[in-house]
């Protein structure tokens, strides 16, 4: 398994390079927006990947709540963190695209605003995990993930209705897409998905290592450095994840 990782990393790098070439050179130039439109090939796949990762977090959170599987909790953390990274990319590339094309940095349209709220919810999820000292943090975080998931449809719906009352330019445009552009879009999506899987895999290994270190630290304070139970350890033995 371990030797597979570098091979996949190289393959993914090649795929990303190919996708970049497709986006910058092969894809046809958009009629009205010009070459700036090519940001689309990075913006949209990042959004799809982020939403998929957040969905993985939701499923892992529910699995954890029901079956208390620690691996599910580890996966939840990983998916949330990498999801936030991809979501950040969406929120940065969106305004960079909007400015030259529509003259505005930001608009409270349905997609951008929902993405922003999702980002806020998951950043708060990560902050909760960072600031919570309890050994029950995974449970609390899982509960927050469920609340977030319940919230998102409401957010989307409320902004959608607001926009029907106060219409404004839609960033990212709607309507049908040229099949050649769709082809390039899908290639970039495949490349970024492979990249996301690799990053998650790497982050997951990091998470497992972190938990091993914490267990070893807990064991050491319980048993003392020589494997002998120490007097003070009996008083200060932490349960599970102690305050870091």
């Amino acid at each position, binding site marked *: 398994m371990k030797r597979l990782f570098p091979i996949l990393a190289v393959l993914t790098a090649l795929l990303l390079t190919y996708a970049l070439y497709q986006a910058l050179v092969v894809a046809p130039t958009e009629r009205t927006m010009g*070459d700036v439109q090519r940001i689309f090939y990075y913006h949209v796949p990042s959004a799809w990947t982020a939403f998929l990762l957040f969905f993985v977090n939701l499923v892992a959170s529910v699995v954890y709540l029901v079956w208390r599987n620690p691996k599910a909790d580890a996966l939840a953390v990983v998916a949330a963190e990498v999801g936030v990274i991809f979501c950040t990319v969406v929120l940065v*590339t969106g305004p960079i695209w909007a400015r*030259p094309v529509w*003259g505005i940095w930001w608009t409270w349209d349905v997609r951008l605003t929902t993405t922003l709220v999702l980002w806020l919810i998951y950043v708060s999820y990560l902050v909760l995990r960072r600031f919570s000292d309890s050994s029950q943090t995974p449970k609390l975080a899982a509960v927050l993930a469920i609340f977030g998931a319940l919230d998102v449809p409401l957010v989307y719906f409320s902004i959608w209705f607001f926009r029907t009352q106060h219409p404004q330019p839609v960033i990212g445009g709607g309507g049908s897409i040229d099949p050649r552009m769709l082809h390039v879009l899908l290639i970039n999506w495949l490349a970024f998905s492979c990249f996301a899987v690799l990053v998650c895999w790497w982050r997951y290994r990091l998470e497992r290592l972190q938990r091993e270190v914490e267990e070893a630290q807990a064991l050491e304070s319980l048993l003392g450095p020589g494997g002998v139970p120490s007097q003070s350890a009996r008083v200060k033995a932490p349960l599970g994840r102690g305050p870091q």
Partner: protein
Amino acid sequence: MNSANSIKFLYAAYIATWLIHALYLGSLVRRYGRLRQQMKDLRK
């Protein structure tokens, strides 16, 4: 906005994307290093 100027935004977006990913991956490398060091200290 003319297309010569707006190309800058295209490059800015692509560079920003990879910058964000690079910063994140860099932070992972640093955390790995720190954890491996902690593991070594524990095994002593």
